[in-house]
């Protein structure tokens, strides 16, 4: 038991060291880091302007108004920001497999998927993360802050990040079955991101089912927004179950795919 705990501690220490190393990359290029992060914050803020104008004209969409859009953009931005700033390598699985670049991770004594995911960072995603956190905070304040709502917001922020990462890994792993499918993987990711940024309350029936259980577009924005507005145990269970399902599915699909991977002849170091 003690040995197991030591192993877990070692693993977390290794992940923390990787993250520290990646953050040093950010601070090395300070000007580019600040410029890209601020640029991304302004970029995302444009969405809010669009929705402000939209709700000014139409009032509401199935009970949703501008304040719900604050929460929606907050969760999607935060989830994307965490997943892409810390584990950007996951978005390159398809490219790595195509060019035989996964070899260098296979020989290392750590989980391959974790290694691959932590192998790269995206500077601009820090902007998504920062604005996302601010918007989640603004949403909780506007709907009325309480211990339950704050706790749920923190919990969901983490879950949304896991779903974004899980979905990314699944669509990137398509390459193990369909060669040279990088663009297809990117397109499928867009397939989820696009509707996730729309007022989800307009999606009902079959479309709502698809965007919740097949493409998790509503899970990364609309669902947490609704649960925080009207907290419920059922909502918490659904959100937790879907998040865990995506984490396990990602690991399973990647491992199954990796068995089909054929080594490349490129020489690289890590």
């Amino acid at each position, binding site marked *: 038991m003690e040995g197991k705990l030591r192993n877990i501690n070692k693993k977390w220490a290794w992940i923390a060291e990787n993250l520290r190393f990646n953050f040093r990359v950010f601070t090395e290029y300070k000007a580019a880091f600040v410029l890209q992060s601020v640029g991304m914050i302004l970029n995302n803020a444009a969405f809010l302007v669009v929705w402000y104008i939209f709700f000014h004209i139409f009032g509401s969409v199935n009970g949703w108004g501008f304040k719900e859009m604050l929460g929606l953009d907050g969760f999607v931005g935060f989830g994307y920001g965490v997943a892409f700033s810390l584990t950007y390598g996951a978005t390159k699985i398809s490219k790595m497999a195509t060019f035989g670049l996964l070899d260098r991770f296979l020989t290392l004594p750590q989980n391959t998927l974790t290694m691959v995911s932590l192998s790269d960072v995206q500077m601009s995603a820090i902007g998504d993360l920062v604005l996302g956190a601010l918007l989640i905070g603004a949403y909780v304040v506007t709907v009325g802050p309480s211990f339950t709502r704050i706790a749920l917001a923190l919990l969901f922020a983490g879950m949304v990040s896991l779903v974004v990462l899980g979905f990314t890994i699944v669509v990137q792993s398509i390459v193990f079955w369909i060669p040279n499918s990088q*663009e297809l993987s990117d397109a499928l990711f867009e397939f989820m991101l696009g509707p996730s940024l729309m007022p989800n309350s307009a999606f009902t029936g079959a479309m709502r089912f698809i965007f919740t259980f097949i493409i998790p577009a509503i899970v990364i924005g609309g669902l947490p927004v609704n649960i925080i507005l009207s907290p419920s145990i059922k909502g918490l269970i659904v959100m937790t179950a879907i998040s865990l399902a995506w984490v396990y599915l990602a690991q399973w699909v990647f491992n199954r795919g990796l068995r089909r991977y054929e080594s490349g002849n490129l020489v690289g170091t890590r």
Partner: protein
Amino acid sequence: MKTRLLMKSSHQSMNTTLRQALAKYTYVGYLAYKELLAYPASLLGRLAIHALRITYLGIIYEYVFTHSGKSAIHGMDALHAVWALALVQLVYQLTGSGRTFKHFKDEIISGQIEVRLNKPYYYPLQSLADALGQAPIRFVLFFAITALVLGSAFGMPTFTIQQKSLFLPLLSLGVLLFVLTQQLLSLSAFWIEDPTPAWWVLSKIAWIINGTFIPLAILPAYFKTASLLFPLSASFFLGRIYEITDWYSGAKFVGIQLLWILLIYTAIYFTYKQGAKKISINGG
């Protein structure tokens, strides 16, 4: 007689050069077209995303028009709003949103632009031909899917004779202007480290005044005025086709697009010339 012969010969040589240039850039466009067809899964993926995007935009607009109790805003009803948004998306799809900006900027930042200088073409034109080469086939496919999806889910709108006649000019000039604007912005990479954040911000400002998410026809008048003054929104005048009520209003849109194309191409010519002087080639 000798002068006339010389003039004739110079005229013929100019014609030959033009013909050769046209053939060269047409071939670049043809290669881009072949590249598109080389990855059918990717193309199908993009078509599916386009279909999905216009569907959910349609659902949202149909919902808000129905439930807000407004049958029309400034003369635009739900059906025309959905089509206006889809036509803006069509312009984006014809060249790939931001593709030219990324390619051109990456060439400059990575220093690969030095290789382009040695090639027997003028790089901005090569890049333009590369971007436009896929446009005709993309138009056929994306317009077909737009008509199929929107026609079956929401219905087909009617077009006046002026709107029908100006459809292709507004689309072609819009696509050309969009590519040129991307080229001009990417040229700033000669002077600043990375113009990507500037592109993000400008392209998102454009969303507000080019009808990407809200048709301009239903916005207050000052948004429409702003859209005339900004090339990234003039590129998407096709989405304002329902505002064309007579030949004059249509000619105004086409005229503004032509003016922007002229101004931006001139700016590209001089900026590229200045930028190319900044390239220092190392011995590597």
